[in-house]
């Protein structure tokens, strides 16, 4: 992090400039517009991924832990996308959504929904959402895995007692499952937060290091890569400025993790009372 206080021509910053890099990052328009844009995109991205992975993932885990034929197979299958590289997942989605030969548009056409076809990754209104969905698809199984192991850990006798007392599935979820998996909600949320605020691979694969179209999918991770390691024609700001961006990311991640930790510890204490 000390390199954020330096500037220089080559790869290794050697000229001490104090806080100058930070001052420039927040006062010069060409720097701060990109920084705040990536910040906003990252928050939207995080909200979509958290909703899909936490809310949908939780309900999927509730379904998976019911006893039915094939539940072992589903459990095994659900984690499969998580084993692939983020890069591969990004490219698969990019190819499936391709306007010329993508299978997804052809499928919409086939079932008569051709009106819904839009340039998924070419439109700045949908691109960020599509990228977030690709990441959610990949790591969905990880949330499901964490939640299922939490639900499996609840003692069978408590569940049975509730069922005998005639508790509906909703009551069961609200009064028994949710309180006991709350620490896992915390862990999953914090992991998603850390992953999303440093996410780079998916942007690289789907929309390039500039977060096309028009920086609408630029996240902190791609901003950091571009500013620190690209040549100035391709959006590089020099290694010293890059280090300043990385330091700001570090501060954001630390504050975020701290905030979630206190939030979930308080919630848990409130529930235990």
């Amino acid at each position, binding site marked *: *992090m*000390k*390199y954020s206080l330096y500037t220089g021509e080559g*790869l*290794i910053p050697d000229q001490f400039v104090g806080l100058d890099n930070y001052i420039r990052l927040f006062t010069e328009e060409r720097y701060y517009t990109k920084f705040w844009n990536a910040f906003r995109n990252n928050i939207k991205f995080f909200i979509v991924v958290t909703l899909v992975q936490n809310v949908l993932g939780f309900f*999927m885990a509730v*379904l*998976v832990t019911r006893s*039915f034929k*094939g539940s072992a197979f*589903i*459990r*095994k*299958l*659900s*984690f*499969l*996308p*998580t*084993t*692939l*590289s*983020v*890069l*591969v997942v990004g*490219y*698969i989605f990019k*190819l*499936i959504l391709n306007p010329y*030969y993508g*299978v997804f548009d*052809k499928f919409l056409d086939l079932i008569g929904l051709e009106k819904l076809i839009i340039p998924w990754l070419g439109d700045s209104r949908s691109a960020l959402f599509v990228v977030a969905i690709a990441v959610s*698809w990949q790591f969905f*199984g*990880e949330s499901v*895995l*964490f939640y*299922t*192991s939490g639900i*499996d850990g609840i003692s069978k006798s408590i569940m049975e007692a509730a069922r005998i007392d005639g508790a509906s*599935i909703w009551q069961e979820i609200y009064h028994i499952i949710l309180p006991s998996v709350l620490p*896992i909600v915390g*862990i999953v949320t*914090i992991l998603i937060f850390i992953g999303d605020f*440093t996410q*780079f*691979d998916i942007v*690289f*694969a789907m929309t390039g290091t500039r977060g096309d179209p028009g920086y609408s999918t630029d996240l902190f*991770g791609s901003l*950091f*890569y571009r500013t*620190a390691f690209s040549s100035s024609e391709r959006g590089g700001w020099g*290694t010293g400025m*890059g*280090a300043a961006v990385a*330091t700001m*990311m*570090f501060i954001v*991640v630390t504050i975020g993790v701290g905030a979630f930790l206190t939030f979930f510890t308080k919630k848990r204490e409130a529930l235990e009372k």
Partner: protein
Amino acid sequence: MINIKRSISKTFLYIAMTIYSLSILIPLFVMMMTSFKTNAEIFKNPFGLPSSFNLDAYINLFVISNYGKYFLNSIGVTVLSLALAVTMSALAAYAISKYKFKYNRAIYVYFVVGLVVPIKLGTIDIMITMLRLSIFDTLWALIIVYIAMAIPLSVFVLYDYIRMVPEELSSAGRIDGCSEPGIFARIIVPLIKPGLAAAGIISFIPNWNEFWFPLVLIKSRENYTIPLATGQLFGQFDTKLDLVFAVLSLASIPVIIIYLLLSNYFVKGLSAGAVKG
């Protein structure tokens, strides 16, 4: 009444599970099937099976694009870094769990903090360190970084395994005249084998798929790992769709096979970590 309700909810359950399975399988299926089609066929018949299993794309990748070399690089980096990381973590976890000294707790916390601090943010310092050590653009640079990445989780997992080994066993060893390294090698290691396996397996997937550090630290083509080769070849073959899909399939097939073979260990290791944390 209850029976009707139950069968409705069973039906709902099966429908949900079918949709879920298809949403996982279809993208993977499309990817692999497309890699066997010719370019013309991809446009003509995007759905469905290829008319014949056309292996040209794969042969091209291995012969022209040196894919075999990239595989060897990835295997070498992964095996070496995981083996070294697990060995070092076991020694570290042993020291902080079995010997009493002033900063036990602090050192343990220091290791575990590594789980939440993203190493990516220190990339510039890492890059400069590698330049100064003159191992920039070599596989050693990656191996060192991957060891550092695997250590926090491995220490975290192994710490608990080692703590569960009863103190009496080590004491008995000492009385019989076994040296301290001997106690570790002959008593502790055999007892924590499952922990060692878990630590290695959990770190395998992120290690094998890692893309960021090769992108920053590797410049020469002969040092590419599979993810870096995937990233670069994908752009290069923009118009040759069969090659593009073959690149993606090749990057995924090894890890899918290993996951299917070892899935029980993955799930056990990961869920143990989640529930405990």
